[in-house]
């Protein structure tokens, strides 16, 4: 298991090198002079020239590329063109906020989604089941940015219950709307998977045995059905968390949540290439780590799987 984990971690390295290479190739076709961008639109040509030499934009591309890779390998992300601060310091500030939002959304969707799935499975083909499954199918079809906008209107503009956007310290009212928006599609998916997994378990002999010995329905569900249905549910939560990280830039921009997604978006808008590259790398690494964690968790829940 340990060997497996280490091997998986090592496998991330070539992927990262490839990622940086693809990104470097893409970004160097970008129109716009980074030195001019840093200096501002009305800067003196001499200032622009100084910056260009200082930042090394006048060197040949392959030197810039190798230098770039070397810096990344040493964990040096460089300075942001925009904030002029070391990118690492920016990232340390913004990344935890993204994790906070993503975890809040995933926990909310897992709790509510599994709960809805349990209800749907228990009342199979009843009206509650149909209603939940319809909502689940609908949730998967909402465009995230539009959903965000509509929830903003409903809860912040008309009902005035929640702040429309922004960031507050800790888990307070600011996190509710973005987390809920992010959770909605996952919630539908989880409800569907939970229901399907439970229905599969329901046909097992040991469920009939449990019922035959007079166990209450709720207990049958909690002790016998849910634990055995857990494997597909957990693996769905894992893949869903990755999907959630993909959608997070959209949500962060709309709700002005100062996380890494918004940081990357701003970097792209202002052509702040080092900052963009750094945030893409960090996001890619976190996705890889989540995938690894899911696989390990998978083996933990289902002892039949052994990684060597």
């Amino acid at each position, binding site marked *: 298991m340990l060997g497996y984990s280490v091997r998986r971690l090592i496998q991330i390295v*070539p*992927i*990262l090198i*490839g*990622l940086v290479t*693809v*990104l470097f190739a*893409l*970004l160097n*076709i*970008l*129109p716009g002079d980074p030195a001019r961008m840093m200096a501002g639109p009305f800067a003196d040509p001499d200032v622009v020239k100084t910056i260009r030499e200082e930042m090394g934009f006048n060197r040949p591309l392959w030197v810039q590329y190798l230098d770039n890779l070397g810096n990344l390998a040493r964990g040096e992300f460089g300075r942001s063109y925009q904030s002029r601060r070391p990118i690492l310091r920016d990232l340390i500030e913004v990344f935890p906020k993204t994790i906070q939002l993503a975890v809040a959304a995933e926990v909310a969707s897992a709790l509510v989604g599994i709960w809805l799935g349990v209800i749907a499975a228990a009342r199979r083909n009843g009206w509650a089941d149909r209603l939940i499954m319809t909502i689940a*199918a*609908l949730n*998967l*079809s*909402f*465009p*995230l*940015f*539009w959903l965000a*906008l*509509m929830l*903003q*209107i409903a809860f912040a*503009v008309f009902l005035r219950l929640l702040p429309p956007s922004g960031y507050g310290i800790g888990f307070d009212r600011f996190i509710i709307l973005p987390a809920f928006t992010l959770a909605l*599609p996952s919630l539908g*998916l989880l409800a569907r998977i939970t229901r399907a997994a439970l229905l599969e378990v329901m046909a097992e002999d040991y469920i009939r045995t449990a019922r035959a010995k007079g166990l209450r329905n709720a207990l049958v569900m909690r002790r016998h059905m849910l634990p055995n249905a857990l494997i597909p549910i957990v693996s*769905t939560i894992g*893949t*869903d968390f990755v*999907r959630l*990280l*993909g*959608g997070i*830039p*959209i949500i962060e*921009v709309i709700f002005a949540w100062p996380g890494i*997604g918004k940081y*990357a*978006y701003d970097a*792209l808008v202002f052509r702040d290439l080092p900052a*963009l590259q750094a*945030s*893409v790398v960090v*996001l*890619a690494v976190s*996705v*890889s780590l989540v995938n690894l964690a899911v696989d390990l968790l998978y083996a933990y829940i289902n002892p039949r799987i052994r990684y060597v």
Partner: protein
Amino acid sequence: MRTSIREFATSDWRRFRRSRLAVVGVGVILLFALLAAFAPYIVTDPTQIEMRREQDGQTLRPPFPPNRLNLFGTDQLGRDIFARVVYGLRTSLIVGILVRGISMVAGVLLGLISGFFPRYVDDLIMRFTDIMLAFPVILLAMTVTAVLGPGLVTVCVALALVAWPDVARLVRGQALSIRGQTYVEAARCIGAGSWRILLRHVLPNCMGPIIVAFSMGIPGAIMYEAGLSFFGFGIQPPTPSLGSIISDGRGYITVAPWYPGFPGLVLTILVLSVNLVGDGLIDVMNPRAALGMQNSRSAT
């Protein structure tokens, strides 16, 4: 299980028809497609500006709420939102099918090669797939359109670029399982070349999952296009896009909720319909083979 297009067309249509929701989905998509195709004959000019309107002796200023003339109301310039939405549907449908078409061709080709040719070719393609899959999708698409300059063609290129790796993986898995079959061995014995085996034996036999993957990927493409346009990285005005209409309507949320509301609703219905058709197709085809595609959809 192994379904060629012709078999699907004849025998499986009955099974597909059994799922009522999928048929409803087909109906909605057909309706939208007709609207989009014959837009100039159905709706008014979407660029027609109307800055004032007399009603009951009062002078009204746009945005006008939904009324007899404007089914979805108008925007801040008095342009009919229904007309703009219909033209936006045009863009959505074109992008959805084009992006999925390009990414499917690329993905299927690379997947087949990867699953059938020597190990080092497979490794090369799959490592590249891993790299592309590691990118945060929306950021990569935005970066590509930022590099190439926004517009319909670049949006399609950007979205196809982020969509093919999923397909390549799926098809590679199929090709791997088919290459060991007896009929492949038999074809090789009578002297068929690799490409002939790939195109005449392997490809037709993984057509089921490919059709499902095609339909399952369309909603994602449509939503990503709308998302890109919403953030200004996608389709540029004057070409209408549902995403950019919603984006324009953001500022009028409180005075004209119909402005961003209706385009989003139409977008949702379109995506939902395509999803329903996809679900119906999964029921018809081998459900196991398509299972992997289920989670990858709808990330915007």
